[in-house]
């Protein structure tokens, strides 16, 4: 019961938007990097809530930092993820999102012009297939996945009757395809160290945010590769040290590329997972840019952080074989 209260309290904190999270001028709903990296065992239901905060205040021209502190973009995403293992090899993940985008501009009169947009974001679904299952003797796992993104979020929010830009919208407005893979190998140098490797690719569709009779807008395709190690301390917490490479191609309008979108990023992701109970974990992860090379000139990530809560239960144990 105490656990339930604790869980509920944190959800309330999320809902009042105290906890902070993400976006980018090369953006859209930042769901891809939020997907559960690993797979879920047969009969296990895993529920996750996470909040991501992404602050963008750095302006880059290519890989050159520009001294321009007049603008800030903040993206908060609140994600609810369901993972379930159908069989020993097949599991699925579904992710729902709620987005809050903020744009701040310091005007010459020192007035801060702020625009906030919030709403339900898009949803991802992913079916995963384990080619290699890890067990006690062979702690190697390899899985592939395929899925898509459903445009549950609107991409046509207006302010004072003016259509807001694509990357300020809660959703992208397009159906997207998704490819995913995961590899992990335990006992690297030590039984406590696991090597993880995860990559995903989002092939984006075109939306009709300017109207049915107008040319479509397409967010650039996105590739994310995350790799590093997880260290189990044999206490109540684990540590993860990951690096992430992200590439997005340029957005398109009417099949022509939009300037100042797309680029390459490398991040360092330190993280810590707390094992509250056998079923309940919480994790805090940072995302610090190590390298940014944007196409054209863009406002880009200064830092991001996320807080996640995860609850797992075995439906087989609980209900005898669901």
């Amino acid at each position, binding site marked *: 019961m105490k656990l339930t209260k604790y869980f509920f309290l944190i959800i309330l904190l999320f809902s009042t938007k105290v906890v902070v999270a993400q976006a980018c001028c090369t953006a859209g709903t930042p769901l891809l990097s939020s997907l559960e990296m690993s797979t879920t065992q047969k009969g296990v239901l895993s529920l996750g*809530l996470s909040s991501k905060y992404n602050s963008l205040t750095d302006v880059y021209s290519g890989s050159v930092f520009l001294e321009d502190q007049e603008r800030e973009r903040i993206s908060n995403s609140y994600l609810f993820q369901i993972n379930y293992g159908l069989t020993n090899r097949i599991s699925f993940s579904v992710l729902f999102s709620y987005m809050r985008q903020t*744009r701040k501009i310091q005007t010459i009169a020192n007035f801060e*012009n702020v625009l906030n947009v919030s*709403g339900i974001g898009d949803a991802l679904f992913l079916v995963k297939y384990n080619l290699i299952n890890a067990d006690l003797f062979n702690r190697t796992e390899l899985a592939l996945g395929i899925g898509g993104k459903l445009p549950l979020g*609107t991409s046509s929010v207006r302010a*004072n009757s*003016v259509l807001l*830009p694509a990357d300020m919208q809660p959703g992208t407005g397009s159906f997207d395809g998704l490819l995913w893979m995961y590899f992990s190998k335990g006992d690297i140098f030590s039984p406590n160290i696991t090597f993880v490797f995860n990559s995903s690719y989002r092939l984006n569709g075109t939306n009709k945010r*300017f109207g049915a009779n107008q040319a479509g807008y397409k967010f650039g395709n996105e590739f994310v590769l995350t790799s590093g190690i997880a260290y189990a301390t044999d206490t109540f917490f684990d540590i993860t040290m990951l690096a992430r490479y992200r590439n997005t191609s340029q957005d398109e309008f*009417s099949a022509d590329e939009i300037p100042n979108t797309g680029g390459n990023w490398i991040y360092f992701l330190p993280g810590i997972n707390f094992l509250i109970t056998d079923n309940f974990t919480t994790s805090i992860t940072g995302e610090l840019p190590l390298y940014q090379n944007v196409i054209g000139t863009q406002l880009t990530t200064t830092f991001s952080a996320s807080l996640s809560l995860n609850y797992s239960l075995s439906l087989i144990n609980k209900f005898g074989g669901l």
Partner: protein
Amino acid sequence: MKTIYRYLLIAIFVATITSCDEVSTTEPKKDDGGKQSNDWLIPSNKVFDGGPGKDGIPALQDPNFIDVDAIDYVADNDLVIAVKVGNEIRVYPHSILDWHEIINDGIGSTKYALTYCPLTGSGIGWNRVIDGNETTFGVSGLLYNTNLIPYDRATGSNWSQMQLQSVNGKLISKFISLVPLIESKWSTIKTSFPNAKVVSTNTGYSRNYGRYPYGDYRTNHTSLIFPVEHSDDRLKGKERVLGVFDGENTKAYRVESFETNGQVLIEKFASTNFLIYGNSGKNFITAFTIPNNSTFEIITSDLPWIFKDSNGNKYDLFGTSEDKSIQLTPAKSFIAYWFSWAAFYQNTKLYK
């Protein structure tokens, strides 16, 4: 099973409290009582937020100027805009305007804003004194027909740059009065006016002024970033034209239609007699209103002098006679990419 229901209820709770799309903005209070009205003179569903936001592209105010000889950031073929008031000439390179779009400036008592939209290639001088009150203009971050919508800081009213009119706010429907300017490549301007002053890159902002910020946009004729209301395929989209007004009538003149050594065209397409001077070699075109039966003759290779009248008076790019006793009247006109001129002025005539 109770556990599952519990978390389902929690999920529903979270979904419920966050189920609506919400938008909130802050705006400085103006003398029209605050936030901009939702009344637009143009279709508001065709007005788009370009992304950077209001003042996200910072307009310049009273920029620094340096001598022509000190300029090293503008290539000979780069386009620049020049304004002349009295004997003073100031030059505003596109490479600065691409990043700031508006420069609030003035020479003597003439207060003007150089407004330039890199997406429509339109550079227009706007008088900053409206109804006797001096104002400055900022970049609203909004676009109509993918064209700049400046706002005036005195009232917060939004203006359509190429429509030359306030389209939203307290001053809705009011037309702007224009300050004449010319546009040409840098080599033409620096040769013609070696004593001019040119905007310095020391703007107070960190920008890569040596780099065009829109990729291949200005040469890719099909590339648009936002929809436009009307398309016209008589010319390639990014071809530069001089659009000339004669009352409600308009006509576009291609720079490329004129001789490489310059050409004077005198014609009346509605009620006014115009002199159109174009020089495709110098990448220059301008228009003046002239009395009927006037005759002019081309001058080649003698910049800044480009033509002379029947009395032998030579005129420079601004239409000023050599002895400064005659100033031809600049026609109401501006240069823009063809696609945008055609989007705003759909029934426009086209020379050649």
